[in-house]
């Protein structure tokens, strides 16, 4: 097998992916068999943009997209992780050799449970004011503090942690970024119930938790920079995809948009007012896809794209609007929930879960600030606590 596909040989690459999928994937829209991700990694399809030493193919974006689209065409997961795998990308970019050796491939194979230990009761939008502390002691750090809203902490093997390492430096300059081992006595996880009724996020209490030196990414006081890398991956993933209804509906082509399917089923496609509302949402989704495509084209030309920052904000609007229009379609049926009323249950779940995107990963308001300041170059909001030693800063 070649590990390098020359530019211009798009058809050859397409044929190679197809042949591989034909030989290995059980068939269109089937469940992934056991060990599937490992196979994808081994076939060098998981991270084709990456260098060969990390099971990549050094492909450019245009070629890598071909791999992704062939996987998507048969509903096979696991490709495109060089864009979407927040954990592996952050680790590859900033991790120590020892940690990369240990975790990069297992992360691609989906063998490592992960969570984000960023938010604290007093530090949400303002992550640079974290108060969880990491103190160096010989060959490891000792971590003490409390995290909150930590999705999937209960099953995680590692958490990407930000913690204060220097209390006398200004708040952005005294933070470290770690892969904290979660399965240890110093880490206690308490589930929180969400408004959807689910319990995916948690409180995490850290009491003398131990983090080996090699699990530090970047310098001990340069965690803010590492965090920016990680946040960019997280936000771009949230801009491209969002969770569907609880029961899962999978990916669908624009032609059978789930909103139109619901409207048809409910007889709402005859109503001219609802048609307008439906059209607006379907068009918003299409526009987001077109923006994303242009953003990628810009990236290929080496220009940084303002479009990239808009994706998460656009997705948030789409999700809230889609839930609203679903409610209009269902009318009184939306009073109901539970397994006996799946259409209403989906609609109400999507209404609530839209906040996952408009609050989680940085709120819409924060996204707008970022777009205004970093993309449009508008003057920055004065930050009264930016260059003050962290000890002197006012927090909740």
């Amino acid at each position, binding site marked *: 097998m070649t590990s390098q596909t020359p530019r211009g040989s798009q058809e050859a690459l397409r044929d190679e992916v197809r042949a591989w999928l034909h030989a290995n994937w059980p068939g269109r829209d089937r469940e992934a068999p056991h060990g599937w991700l490992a196979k994808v990694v081994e076939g060098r399809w998981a991270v084709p943009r990456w260098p060969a030493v990390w099971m990549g193919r050094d492909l450019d974006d245009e070629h890598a997209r071909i791999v992704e689209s062939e996987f998507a065409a048969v509903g096979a997961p696991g490709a495109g992780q060089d864009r979407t795998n927040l954990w592996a990308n952050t680790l590859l970019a900033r991790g120590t050799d020892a940690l990369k050796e240990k975790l990069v491939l297992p992360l691609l194979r989906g063998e490592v449970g992960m969570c984000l230990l960023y938010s604290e009761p007093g530090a949400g939008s303002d992550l640079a004011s974290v108060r969880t502390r990491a103190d160096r002691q010989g060959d490891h750090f000792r971590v003490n503090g409390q995290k909150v809203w930590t999705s999937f902490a209960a099953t995680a093997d590692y958490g990407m942690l930000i913690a204060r390492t220097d209390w006398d430096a200004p708040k952005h300059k005294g933070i470290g970024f770690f892969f904290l081992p979660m399965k240890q006595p110093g880490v206690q996880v308490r589930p929180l*119930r969400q408004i959807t009724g689910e319990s995916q996020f948690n409180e995490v209490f850290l009491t003398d938790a131990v983090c080996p030196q090699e699990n530090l990414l970047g310098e001990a006081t340069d965690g803010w920079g590492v965090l920016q890398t990680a946040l960019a991956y997280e936000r771009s993933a949230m801009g491209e995809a969002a969770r569907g209804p609880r029961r899962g509906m999978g990916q669908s082509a624009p032609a059978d948009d789930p909103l139109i399917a619901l409207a048809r089923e409910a007889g709402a496609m005859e109503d001219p007012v609802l048609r307008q509302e439906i059209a607006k949402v379907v068009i918003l989704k299409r526009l987001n896809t077109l923006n994303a495509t242009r953003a990628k084209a810009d990236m290929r030309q080496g220009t940084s794209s303002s479009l990239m920052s808009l994706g998460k904000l656009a997705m948030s609007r789409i999700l809230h609007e889609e839930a609203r229009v679903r409610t209009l379609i269902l*009318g*009184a049926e939306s009073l109901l*929930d539970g397994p006996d009323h799946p259409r209403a249950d989906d609609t109400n779940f999507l209404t*609530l879960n839209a906040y996952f995107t408009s609050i989680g990963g940085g709120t819409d308001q924060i996204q707008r600030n970022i777009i205004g300041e970093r993309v449009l170059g508008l003057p920055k909001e004065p*930050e009264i606590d930016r260059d003050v030693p962290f000890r002197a800063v006012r927090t*909740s």
Partner: protein
Amino acid sequence: MGVLGVAVPERFGGIGGDAVLIEALMEEVGAALVCGPFLSSAVFAAALLENLGDAEISAKLLPQMAAGSLIAAVAVQDAAAAGTQSGVAPKARQKASGWRIEGEVAYVIHADAAHILLVAAETSEGLRVFLVEGNAHGLARSPLSTFDKTLRLSRLRFDATPARRIEARRETTEALANALDLVRVALAGEQAGGARRVLDITVDYAKSRIQFGRPIGSFQAIKHMAADLLLEVESATSAAREAARLLSMGSASAGAAVSLAASACGDAFVKVTADAIQMHGGIAFTWDHDAHLYLRRARADAQLFGTPAFHREQYLRAMGA
């Protein structure tokens, strides 16, 4: 507990409150997110009985309802879910042994706890309201699982269910329309009061929650949202109170004012509760925070007795447009 007699005339042991008093009371109900069959029994059922004016039945039931010992529910096809349902009303037939009802009504509010039901059914002379005992033979109440856990809804099935016809001193449809007008004003009050409380809670939070070294309410993003929501809250309150005032005066323009209030308050409550979650951030995504309880109530209220869209259409029609 005098409030349970708010819509019951004084001669039957109630307060004899008018729409203005009921609307004011419902603003408090909305603010405190009171659960229970207040709207369905103390307002809707009591107003329907009073409007029908069957002297014997009113004298028997209304004092017990005012005292809180009797809970009633109203089963009218297309009432609770006006504009979206187009089911067929149950049918009533007179047998030698008395009246019998056949058929189904969905979305009946707080029927599960009701001791008696007021059921609108078709007869050969048109629509009439019947009294059905909660434990009547041939009555099946299936609870529906609801998104707003404080709202109880049932589907009722009548299978040769014995019933007593309530005499009416005016057209049944007119009595129903009058009672529904009062219910809609009451609901508008609940929506306005609920929205105001949620905004208060949110503004308080924005003053105390510190991020970036300052209260989040000092950010214009939050301040502007709050200002927009205040406009929603005040508009909803004005609409609800004006509808109550005109209804209590028996004004000819009450109908339009009720539709205006129903549409404005329905949308306002949803908007305010939805934005409040966003303005709180992660804390409001937790079950233990009250924000989602208000959102659930707001979403339910926006479907009851006609959606905002339905009432916008009614409003245009009332304006002759």
